């Protein structure tokens, strides 16, 4: 029998099809969810607000986002305990972007982002142990402890980092898209950047080239409204980042709604494969400061932060959806969260035990297998130099 459960929240308008009263946790019955806000398009017809999903996906979203949230909060404590040093940029509040994007694409598509990369790394197939070990500078980290918080990479998962210099990853992203077009392999690249990086010149240079050559590049602006301590209206004359592409179409998306993100990314992928680049602006928010050395409260009020947490929190939204569709009880969700907490604690313990890199690792991976290339003269005698 059809059950239409109405929740008090005006954000949700669940339309569920026939669901029996027992919960199908792994069923693939399609469910249609409405995004919280309509999409706004620039030079393009926005996609519809109705998103197809399944109970399996809903539970997965909840689990993945809760895991990411837990990981970031654990990193916060580790940083305060001085196990993580240097810069640590946390992603809690923005998990919906990572999870929604991941559900719309394959591992063959490429993602490249800036330094707020822990959760995207997880989404691309990175493990918790690799992440924590890298944060603590251990050998088992994804970059062997030599990269740190800002340099997570996963080649097999199509995750290209992890870059410290603001905006420099966008031309790299267009290069990835160029390589995809060169090899004709029908995949796309998501080049992510923030509202602060949106004012970088190299972004517009790269966008021009991507549009000129119809590269399958999707530029995703994760607009959390603050470029470190500077609010977006103080840094940009036009904070409508999805419109800044001018000749490149853009879409503004509610970045706290994982289904909106999923729909937008699916739409963008289809568009990019046919017509070239598109800009997605994800309207999102970060609860922590810019990094662990920034309290995050000098340039915004605590009320604002708690307001967003109450009204727009991405994990809460999915929790409410799960409960609304009767896919799990409150208790089951709480148990899942406890499991996740344990998982994260175990990973941290394992990472803490992992050894620091060997001193000889200082000199590995600077050049690929030593130097140069096998050389020969015209008479095929090898001329390789022997260095002291």
């Amino acid at each position, binding site marked *: 029998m059809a059950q239409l459960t109405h929740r008090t929240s005006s954000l949700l308008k669940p339309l569920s099809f026939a669901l029996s009263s027992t919960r199908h946790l792994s069923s693939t019955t399609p469910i249609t969810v409405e995004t919280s806000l309509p999409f706004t398009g620039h030079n393009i017809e926005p996609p519809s607000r109705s998103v197809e999903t399944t109970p399996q996906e809903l539970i997965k979203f909840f689990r993945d986002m809760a895991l990411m949230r837990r990981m970031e909060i654990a990193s916060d404590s580790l940083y305060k305990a001085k196990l993580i040093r240097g810069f640590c940029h946390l992603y809690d509040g923005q998990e919906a972007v990572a999870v929604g994007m991941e559900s719309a694409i394959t591992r063959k598509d*490429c993602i*490249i982002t800036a330094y707020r990369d822990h959760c995207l790394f997880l989404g691309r197939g990175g493990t918790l142990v690799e992440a924590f070990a890298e944060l603590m500078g251990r050998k088992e*980290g*994804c*970059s*062997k402890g*030599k*990269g*740190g918080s800002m*340099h997570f*990479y996963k*080649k097999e998962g199509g995750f*290209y*980092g*992890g*870059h410290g*210099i603001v905006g*420099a990853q*966008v*031309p*790299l*992203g*267009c*290069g*990835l*898209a*160029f*390589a*995809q*077009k*060169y*090899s004709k392999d029908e995949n796309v690249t998501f080049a992510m950047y923030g509202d602060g990086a949106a004012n970088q010149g*190299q972004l517009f*240079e*790269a966008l*021009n*080239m991507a549009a*000129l*050559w119809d590269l399958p590049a999707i530029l995703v602006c994760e607009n959390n409204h603050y470029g470190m301590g500077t609010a977006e209206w103080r840094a940009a004359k036009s904070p409508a980042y999805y419109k800044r592409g001018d000749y490149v179409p853009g879409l503004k998306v509610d970045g706290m709604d994982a289904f909106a993100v999923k729909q937008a990314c699916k739409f963008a992928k289809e568009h990019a494969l046919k017509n070239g680049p598109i800009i997605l602006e994800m309207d999102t928010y970060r609860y922590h400061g810019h990094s662990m050395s920034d309290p995050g409260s000098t340039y915004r009020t605590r009320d604002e932060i708690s307001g967003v947490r109450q009204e727009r929190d991405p994990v809460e939204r999915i929790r409410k959806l799960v409960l609304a569709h009767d896919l799990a009880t409150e208790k089951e969700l709480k148990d899942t969260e406890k499991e996740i907490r344990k998982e994260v604690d175990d990973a941290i313990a394992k990472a803490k035990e992992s050894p620091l890199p060997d001193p000889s690792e200082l000199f*590995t*991976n*600077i*050049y*690929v*297998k030593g*130097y*140069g*290339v*096998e*050389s020969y*003269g*015209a*008479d*095929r*005698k090898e*001329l*390789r*130099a022997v*260095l*002291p």
Partner: protein
Amino acid sequence: MAAMLHSVGVTSASVTSNKFTAFSINSLPVIRSESRTVSFAINGTRKTGKVTTKAVATQAENPTSAASKPGHELLLFEALREGLEEEMDRDPRVCVFGEDVGHYGGSYKVTKGLADKYGDLRVLDTPIAENSFTGMAVGAAMTGLRPIVEGMNMGFLLLAFNQISDNCGMLHYTSGGQFTIPTVIRGPGGVGRQLGAEHSQRLESYFQSIPGIQMVACSTPYNAKGLMKAAIRSENPVVLFEHVLLYNLKERIPDEEYILSLEEAEMVRPGEHVTILTYSRMRYHVMQAAKTLVNKGYDPEVIDIRSLKPFDLYTIGNSVKKTHRVLIVEECMRTGGIGASLTASINENFHDYLDAPIVCLSSQDVPTPYAGTLEEWTVVQPSQIVTAVEQLCKQ
């Protein structure tokens, strides 16, 4: 192997400085921009004769050259193009990014005809956006393509410095070895013929401390082609420095395929008295000074270091152990240039073998002026080299 300076107006025939120093320079042998060719012998036979009307490729007893076939003659930019074309034929992942490299054929004709042959995507005409197209090349390299980035003039690559240093040089390390960046970044640099300050830059010194890249400088058609091929095949990012004034050098190179080592220096002229280390265009100034020195009875050993990062301390060291005196002649700036690093390197490693302090002749620490005479005075001239050797050998 004989190299001939084919003067077509843009050669290093800028030795005609009349009021240079207190010396009377008027008596110096002048290589004017007329249709005279001068032959140097790279190895073996020392030809002190100045002018030969008909240039013949002499087969010196150079063990690395092709002793069987005479080869074919071409200019340096053609040698670069040949190397590039051979590599593009061999590996479909090799592509070229740069301004005006495609339809225009390259501002120095290095990529002429390649866009017609390989298409617009492989020989890509970029807009004037060095920062981002160098970044794009790095991104493409991360997936396995092998892009060659051409800076129309090396000085323009300063705009891409962040991409070259952080992404090109460091990605292999910060990703723990997951990504290799097999890019080649090349372009003409150096002091040309009154091109002005911003178009006469020498970037070797700026890039030399970037960890993770290799730097090489070519100086003859033979090594230009060999180094180009080696750079393309290398898995490391390589910066290949060419020189604006050397593009029209003519030489006979072998028909067979050859690749030179990226880390090896070239022995231009063996000798006994003093080691002269040089690279790129200054090699020709040194060889010219060498002729004068030989007339005066000195026997300089000239080494073209070719590999600017890392230095080929093996060849250099063997030479220092033989001659015990070192003179470095470079076109880089005095402060923090390649010569400064090389001096430090040799001092550290071979201090015991030196009979005299290392002398380093570099360009003056000034922006290159436009006026011809002033421009000549910023770079090292053969007469200064001769004086320096004389003083060095007196000690």
